[in-house]
């Protein structure tokens, strides 16, 4: 759906040049939620603003739905922008307009007649869960509610693509989760493609299908969110994964586990996606006459299921333990690693 080739943006000021986006190439599929993560100053905002030409690219091409954005004249660009929704960290609502009139603004721009506008605005208010707030002014809303208005406004012209620049960075964790749920909801309901910029890995973890890691204007790593979580290559990426999973160094704690639990067998379970894994432990405990003791672990939920590791101690008959392990290996995608065999 979106194909970006050799995109570059060089800012010049005070006779200095800053390459904010550097030879960036990327393909984004229709209907996916694509995350771009990077530290402050990596060039994320510049990148997303190049997509609707709020910044003019220095070089490169951007194709959205087979339309070459970089070649459009002013008028065609305005029309193309009506089909690309955008939401912002600080919401950017008009304080002089009510919720209703803020959401109606893009429809005014697109030239909808009043009656149609009102109908569409009501649909959107229901979609984002703001019923009853139609006539409130932005100053009377909480941050989460303001972002809901922002989302409704961005969706007003039924765009195929939604750009989100740090859309949850000004919100508290709980509100962030609610807004992210809303984004997943509209992604599924409307088949909308979403490109999302963030510096928070848990946002990527929670809703993205694929992710690109940005550093110094370049994409240094990209892939399925789960793959990136499992096998981060670059130092930046590893740091971002640690944001969610904690520090990866386990050797010491493993040693400690082996010494403390000197009975039975200790295994490590790697969860790498798939939602069916969730009842795994209780399933195994019911099916085989063994005791399962959870020792330590960290599991996180991604868009494609659980990801993380769990250390468990198995106690019981040696052959029963063997069968249980085989069951897990055969029937699920969970990887089993034996840390210590039974004595």
């Amino acid at each position, binding site marked *: 759906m979106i194909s970006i080739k050799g995109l570059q943006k060089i800012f010049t000021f005070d006779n200095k040049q800053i390459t904010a986006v550097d030879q960036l190439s990327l393909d984004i599929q229709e209907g996916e939620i694509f995350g771009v993560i990077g530290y402050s100053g990596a060039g994320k905002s510049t990148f997303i603003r190049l997509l609707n030409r709020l910044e003019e690219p220095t070089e490169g091409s951007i194709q959205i739905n087979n339309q070459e954005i970089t070649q459009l004249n002013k008028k065609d660009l305005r029309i193309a922008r009506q089909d690309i929704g955008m939401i912002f960290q600080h919401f950017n*609502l008009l304080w002089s307009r009510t919720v209703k009139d803020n959401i109606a603004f893009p429809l005014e721009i697109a030239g909808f007649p009043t009656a149609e506008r009102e109908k569409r605005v009501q649909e959107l208010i229901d979609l984002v869960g703001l019923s009853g707030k139609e006539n409130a002014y932005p100053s009377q809303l909480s941050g989460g509610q303001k972002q809901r208005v922002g989302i409704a406004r961005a969706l007003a012209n039924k765009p195929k693509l939604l750009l989100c620049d740090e859309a949850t960075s000004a919100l508290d964790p709980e509100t962030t989760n609610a807004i992210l749920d809303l984004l997943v909801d509209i992604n599924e309901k409307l088949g909308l493609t979403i490109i999302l910029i963030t510096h928070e890995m848990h946002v990527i973890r929670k809703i993205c299908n694929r992710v690109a890691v940005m550093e110094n204007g370049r994409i240094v790593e990209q892939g399925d969110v789960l793959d990136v979580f499992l096998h981060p290559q670059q130092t930046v990426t590893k740091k971002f994964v640690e944001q969610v999973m904690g520090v990866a160094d386990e050797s010491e704690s493993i040693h400690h586990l082996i010494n403390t639990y000197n009975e039975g067998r200790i295994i490590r379970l790697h969860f790498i996606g798939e939602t069916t894994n969730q009842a795994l432990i209780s399933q195994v405990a019911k099916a085989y006459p063994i005791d399962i003791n959870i020792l330590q672990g960290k599991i996180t939920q991604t868009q494609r299921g659980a990801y993380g590791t769990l250390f468990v101690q198995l106690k019981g008959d040696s052959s029963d333990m063997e069968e249980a392990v085989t069951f897990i290996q055969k029937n699920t995608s969970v990887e089993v690693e034996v840390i210590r065999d039974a004595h």
Partner: protein
Amino acid sequence: MLTNLFPALKLEELWQATYETFYMTILALVGTFIFGILLGLLLYLTMRGGIWENKFINLIVASFVNIFRAIPFIILILLLFPFTNFLMGTIRGPNAALPALIIGAAPFYGRLVEIALKEVDKGVVEASKAMGAKTRTIIFRVLLPESMPALISGITVTAIALIGYTAMAGVIGAGGLGNYAYYFGFQRRDFDVVLVCTIVIVVIVFIFQFIGDYIANKIDKR
């Protein structure tokens, strides 16, 4: 009772002078509002990073504004005599004062408009661009409504300055309360007239201030 306190005061004359002051102030205010908004918009749109970024036009408008703001009003009236005569066919009376009043006040208000526009959240302008808004839409549906409380406070301040200007214009023959106070009060040594004129002007200023504050408050939903 009034005649006892202020023996030289003629109510009819006072009424006429007050009417002329209102007349000059209101008409000049309308002209100032229109030209000031135009100047302010031009300054804002052509500034660095603006929608119509243009160094040359920005410099010209800024120079015009700065020069006319620098000239003391009493001198501006004298300077504009030929222009006023050409435009209005006379240099006496309330109408003849209007060109000088507007040219004196519009650059001042233009600067206030520019400041008000600069206060509009850049993110909101950006969001409007991202929605595909035309420049015209951005001006009339975003910039002006979003800066309206500041535009109203600005025009209130300007109105009060204008009332002062009308009094000065009055002294050189434009009519109004300044004219009345000077010719019928000061020159005839009837200081009661000067005093009453002062009181009326202060009341007019208070009225403008009250109305301006009220409207600015009412429309401010921030």
